[in-house]
């Protein structure tokens, strides 16, 4: 069997962040791969949600976006943004939310809006979508991003989606009473956050890299002292990912 690609490694790492029975909010892209994989492996009783209106699908084909008809196969309810955001997310029922972002800073704050000046940006991104909402209102969040120094700065240019803000108690002080990032899964490893300080540390580095290389590619101080190598995907996980979750090769290039 072909060794796991970085994309596959990340999808498997994402899947492992989901416990069976949890209610999971997923955005477009890698989070969908992870959620579909988890549903087909260790978390058959998880409930998946998409903000566009699909509540608990049993998808047969990978969606291209959270609004895709493919999210409606076997769904419990075909609803809309109003129901998902209000009755499920804001009411505090979501246990884990998956997010991406263009920049992720030291405390897991996400920028999906703009690099440079907000009004005259160097690069403009799509914007929050549901990201700020999921980051604020989920029980915990898992962030997925390519690991590049410029994408992991000390402080995001625009804080679209609140992570631990400035660390410590700053999130609660801002009026956000629950949640916060539990993991940042990147192309190089998995970063987590210390309990009270919410300082980031490297939990694991992917096979083929080193803790030092990860720290080198990170734009904020990163404690690597507790890191171990990321557990490689099991052959069954890769098999399901390639043959069942994404046989069309939408994300996973053969």
């Amino acid at each position: 069997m072909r060794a796991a690609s970085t994309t596959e490694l990340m999808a498997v790492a994402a899947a492992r962040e989901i416990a069976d029975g949890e209610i999971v909010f997923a955005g477009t892209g890698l989070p969908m791969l992870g959620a579909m994989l988890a549903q087909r492996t260790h978390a058959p009783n998880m409930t998946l949600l998409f903000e566009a209106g699909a509540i608990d699908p049993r998808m047969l084909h990978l969606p291209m976006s959270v609004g895709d008809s493919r999210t409606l196969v076997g769904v419990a309810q075909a609803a809309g943004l109003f129901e998902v955001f209000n009755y499920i997310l804001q009411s505090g029922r979501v246990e884990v939310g998956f997010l991406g972002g263009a920049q992720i800073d030291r405390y897991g704050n996400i920028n999906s809006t703009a690099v440079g000046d907000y009004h005259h940006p160097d690069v403009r991104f799509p914007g929050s979508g549901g990201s700020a909402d999921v980051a604020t209102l989920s029980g915990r969040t898992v962030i997925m991003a390519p690991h590049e120094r410029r994408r992991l700065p000390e402080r995001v240019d625009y804080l679209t989606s609140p992570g631990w803000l400035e660390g410590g108690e700053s999130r609660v002080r801002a009026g956000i009473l629950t949640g916060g990032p539990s993991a940042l899964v990147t192309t190089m490893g998995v970063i987590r956050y210390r309990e009270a300080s919410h300082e980031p540390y490297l939990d694991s580095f992917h096979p083929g890299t080193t803790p030092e290389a990860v720290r080198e590619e990170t734009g904020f101080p990163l404690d690597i002292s507790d890191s171990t190598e990321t557990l490689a995907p099991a052959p069954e996980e890769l098999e399901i990912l390639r043959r069942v979750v994404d046989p069309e090769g939408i994300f996973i290039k053969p």
Partner: protein
Amino acid sequence: MEDKLKTLGEAASLIASGSSISIGGFTSQRHPTALLRKLIKDGVRDLIIYCHSAGSDVDLLIGAGSVKRVEGAYQADGVFTPISPNWRRFVEAGRIHFEDYSNASMMARFAAGAMGLPFMPVKSMLGSDLMERWGFSSEERKVDPEAAPAKVHKMECPFTGQQLALVPAIKTDFCLLHVQKASPQGLLRIEGQEFLDVQQAMASRCVIATCEEVVKDEELRRNPELNRIPHFAVDAVVHLPFGAHPHSVHNAYDYDPEHLMEFSRASKDDASFDRYLERYVFGPDSHEEYLELIGGEARMRALRARSGLGYNPELARRGGDR
């Protein structure tokens, strides 16, 4: 009851330059795209757009120079175009005004408008730059009758003491929808996700719906639990099969990956996007001609949804790699 069936031209002619509009659907799904092409062709400009997760619906209008301002949360076509290209190009060049919210806060703004309230409280936006950085200053808002007097107000709940964000209601001149089924009297049925169509419609002074199928009012009334927008809220109905192309319509047809990628490639600069507009917007004399142009019967057959699934599982989706 009044018959509200109109031609595409009649419906489009209701919308004047400078109007505020919202558009139904979500990223690459169920937009009234044929109606948007008609607006561009008719020279409608200076539109003020309220959206949540828009895709190449709003991006088409932006690229055509029809948009003055966007208040919304997201501009992308999922995997096809992770950042809507005209949006990115126009914002970076300072060619449109914009203000950023989250999807849930835009949802709340439309809901407030639909519910006749001047604002809705939300727990989102706290701690975020969505709260702190405004697209338009207080001074600009004072001279713009269309803009809310403030982007957001922070509030302490008088019952619990917790902090909340209050976001201002949206009331648009027009809401443009594409739905699966409509009666001539304007009763609308939506299959699959509603997205935010109901709230957008109820938050608008005039609702125009294009639809895949016109169904007798009595027929729709046989399953009243499935109807989503009442006839008295709808002003015009246009029968327009494949009216959402290149976007998808659940139970009817899939998105068109080839066309979405062509759109994306064409959006790299004004000149190439003008060629796209020339070909697909200004070229065809009618929606029927447009459908011929994109491949006619054969293409429509290739996109057609499989019954029981709502999309086409055989669709070649890796348009991006070709």
